[in-house]
């Protein structure tokens, strides 16, 4: 017997469903176990994963891509663990983030962190002080962290259009 789902028809849903890993959005029955499981939703009036998925289902493309809500998911995957339909809000919101990034909507903290990683090869080069070096030396740990900063230049050229 062929399983039947509630399949919304918004073009935004179809756009997400066409991406690898995004097809699960069509299985969402809006039961709300994601919001009930969500630590962010517990402390925030704004971010409720069920509501955000619903906005995608009904086709609020511009509103969702320009919003910071998809960036508030902690990807803790507790909701995914509990969803009996196999929907992963974390995966869906990651796809939404990448889509938003393509269209130029990226929260500053994310843009800054990516800039650092793709410049230095790692995130915390600027925070690595002499004080920490001394502390590490005292513990018998390597002071030179041996990060590679050349591979990221190649990634920039390939994925960001120029080093």
């Amino acid at each position, binding site marked *: 017997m062929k399983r039947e789902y509630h399949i919304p028809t918004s073009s935004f849903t179809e756009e997400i469903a066409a991406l690898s890993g995004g097809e699960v959005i069509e299985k969402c029955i809006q039961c709300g176990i994601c919001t009930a499981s969500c630590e962010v939703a517990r402390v925030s009036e704004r971010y409720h994963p069920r509501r955000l998925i619903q906005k995608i289902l009904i086709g609020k493309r511009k509103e969702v891509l320009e919003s910071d809500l998809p960036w508030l998911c*902690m990807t803790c995957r507790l909701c*995914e663990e509990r969803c009996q339909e196999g929907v992963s809000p974390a995966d869906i919101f990651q796809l939404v983030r*990448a889509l938003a990034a393509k269209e130029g909507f990226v929260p500053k903290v994310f*843009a800054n962190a990516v800039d650092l990683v793709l410049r230095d090869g790692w995130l915390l080069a600027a925070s*690595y002080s002499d004080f920490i070096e001394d502390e590490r030396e005292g513990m018998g740990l390597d002071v030179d962290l041996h*990060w590679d900063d050349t*591979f990221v230049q190649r*990634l920039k050229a390939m994925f960001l259009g120029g080093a």
Partner: protein
Amino acid sequence: MRMKEILLYRGCTTPVRLSEYESSTKIVLKELGVDAIDLVNANCCGAQFVESLYPRAHAALGGRILALAEQEEKDILAICGACSGSLKHIKHLLDSDESIRKEVNGLLAHEGLKYTGKVEVKHLLQIFNEDIGYRALEKAIVRPYQEVRMAAHYGCHVTRPFEIVKVDDPENPTIIDRIIQLTGATAVQYTSKTQCCGGPLLAMDEELATKIGAGKINNVIRAGAHGIVTACAFCQIQLTQTQLGSESTVINRIPIITLPQFLGYAMGLDYNDLGLYLNPISARHTVFRTAGEVA
């Protein structure tokens, strides 16, 4: 006995903000027959940030780390949940998607590296559970805790999604609890045990992240624990700093201790060698108050 060798992928956060976790991991594992060797010339795994903006670049970052380990013919040990989760996701992706594997290998070919899927990524909890085992851990305890009650915090990216990370039961994890018990302490159960520390939200909204962390801390305090044992650099830092700010809503302060520090002390290792003096919320007179003689 021949030492088992594994490559330690330190990640970005641990060596800068939590050297005592790195150091105690190495000391404790060496005592238990595992030599954790630094993986050098690595790059950031790209978790959360690169992952969100450029998924294919994220795959390349992780793929390069895995390929470096292949070159050394050793498995990878990650002690941060974000790193272990990210590397396991990328391994899963590269093993199942030929086109992305080809793209990554094209990028790696410049430096003579290749990803073929030969090495495993293990989180620290797996080393204890799978490589060392509880019998050996039990034998190593020479200074058991007395009347110490500890709460285990596992870390979301360490245990979920199970199909990819394969560490412990995601709804009822037990590895840290078992280790707490065999050190002579009591593993305390508390509400919200498998819930997030709030760490991944720090960059976007520190206020919300702190509320989430404080909620967890208060649940642990209400359950009557003396401290929390962690197995992720991010969780360790977040659960500590969520208690320190002037805006913090915790009902009391409670020490946060990494698993190798907690275990190492029961194994008779020195308080200072384990870097316990660096933990901002001291456990000197609570958890380690029974600093008894080494048997």
